[in-house]
């Protein structure tokens, strides 16, 4: 029977992994991911989950162990944050090249130095180009649902790419909210056992090798196949969500979520749990007479090219709030959005804000102020003249 429990985001993910009948877990502790693996370890030691857990000695080894286990037919999972994710970066790319359907939870945390255990999105976005399917949840329920769906998406033969599900440090990972834990039988109906032959299996009776040298004559083709799989994933994600809704009754809207955006003239684009604050801000702004809505990006990869265009091309003003920065440039999401909207027949004004790095709160009033500032800029100058700026910096730093 499905039941509602008050769960932290991390525990919600742990329950999802348990329900998905994962075979091998390999992970290394890092705040704030730790309670995911602790909970899974508890499930295993109490006999609630039949799985092998490998207490590896580093994150690089964690993902390496997942690659080995998946190549030998197991359904695998790992979780990490920040420094750990960066440490395993080589293996992040390696996993894509093996086309193995590994699932990883990333509790997004700022990158050191200085040491900072609170949330921003630089760590997960740093993996943007690797070929992983990358999603960000807004709520603990969504984190649970996205994790179960991740196994289906990854293991689909049209995809065969690893999937990472992001959730924000502390705001979600350690904050408890009511979450519906689905019934095991229903999850089994939704998520059958993995087809261990895809994409390949290490079987002494049928020897093959994976990963030998292949020169300039064939490398590009393998990369193209990965890129193509990512494109197929777009369709697969929608199919999986529709099936999930039929079985579990919860609706998800694919690569993006549109909140009160259809008739709006201004759009706020962001990702993660801060979208919740953005929605609150939008409700307030609307009551003040602003015509505004939120577009929350749920999947950063595959890039929601069509969805961004459909939802944003007709807007007058798009405000992108990045909880990350590509040093020397601007926010990563701003770059992606601008490059997509360049193809609009009529381009909206676009304003980028960098906010909330290192876990600095972005409140709903901050969102209101960001929208109002951008709006005033357009009112005064007819267009956006400062394409992007940092929001909420302390005055001591400004020069």
């Amino acid at each position, binding site marked *: 029977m499905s039941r509602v429990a008050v769960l932290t985001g991390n525990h919600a993910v742990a329950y999802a992994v348990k329900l998905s009948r994962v075979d091998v877990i390999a992970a290394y502790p890092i705040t704030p991911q730790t309670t995911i693996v602790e909970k899974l370890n508890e499930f295993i030691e109490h006999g609630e989950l039949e799985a092998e857990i490998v207490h590896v000695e580093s994150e690089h080894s964690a993902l390496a162990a997942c690659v080995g286990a998946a190549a030998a037919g197991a359904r695998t999972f790992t979780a990490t944050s920040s420094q750990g994710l960066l440490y395993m970066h080589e293996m992040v790319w390696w996993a894509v090249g093996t086309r193995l359907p590994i699932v990883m939870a990333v509790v997004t945390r700022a990158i050191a130095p200085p040491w900072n255990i609170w949330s921003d999105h630089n760590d997960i976005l740093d993996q943007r180009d690797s070929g992983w399917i990358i999603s960000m949840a807004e709520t603990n329920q969504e984190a649970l649902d996205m994790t179960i769906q991740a196994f289906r998406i990854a293991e689909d033969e049209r995809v065969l790419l690893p999937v990472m599900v992001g959730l924000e440090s502390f705001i979600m990972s350690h904050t408890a909210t009511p979450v519906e834990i689905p019934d095991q039988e229903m999850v089994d109906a939704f998520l059958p056992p993995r087809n261990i032959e895809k994409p*390949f299996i290490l079987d002494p009776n049928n020897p*093959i090798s994976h990963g030998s040298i292949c020169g300039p004559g064939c490398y590009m083709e393998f990369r193209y196949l990965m890129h193509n799989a990512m494109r197929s994933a777009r369709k697969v994600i929608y199919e999986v969500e529709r099936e999930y809704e039929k079985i579990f009754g919860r609706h998800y809207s694919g690569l993006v979520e549109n909140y009160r955006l259809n008739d709006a003239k201004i759009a706020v684009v962001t990702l993660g749990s801060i979208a919740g604050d953005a929605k609150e801000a939008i409700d307030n702004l609307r009551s003040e007479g602003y015509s505004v809505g939120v577009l929350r990006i749920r999947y950063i990869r595959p890039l929601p090219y069509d969805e961004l265009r459909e939802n944003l091309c007709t807007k007058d003003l798009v405000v992108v709030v990045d909880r990350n920065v590509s040093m020397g440039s601007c926010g990563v999401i701003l770059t992606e959005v601008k490059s997509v909207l360049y193809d609009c027949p009529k381009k909206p004004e676009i304003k980028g804000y960098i906010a909330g790095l290192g876990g600095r709160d972005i409140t709903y009033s901050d969102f209101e102020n960001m929208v109002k500032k951008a709006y005033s800029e357009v009112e005064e100058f007819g267009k956006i003249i400062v394409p992007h700026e940092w929001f909420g910096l302390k005055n001591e730093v400004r020069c």
Partner: protein
Amino acid sequence: MKIHVTVISKPTIGASGKTGFWRTFKPVIDYEKCTNCLICWLYCPENSIEIGNGMVIINYEFCKGCGVCANECPFNAIDFVPEGEYNV
């Protein structure tokens, strides 16, 4: 060449071609002296010495001419001669 989903290779003899072409020196067994002790077969790094009917046979298609067999033969039954000089 059909590309599979990912970079999978299958067991193949001569994966790097007919490596016999690499030789500058060639081992030649003197069957008068050979006692079929199998030491040459044991130490061949290339798996290019075959065990036939009571005799060992060098597979010249792949033998790289390293000379380990000639160096190790306890009976000096393998000559190691410049490639091209001695026609078998």
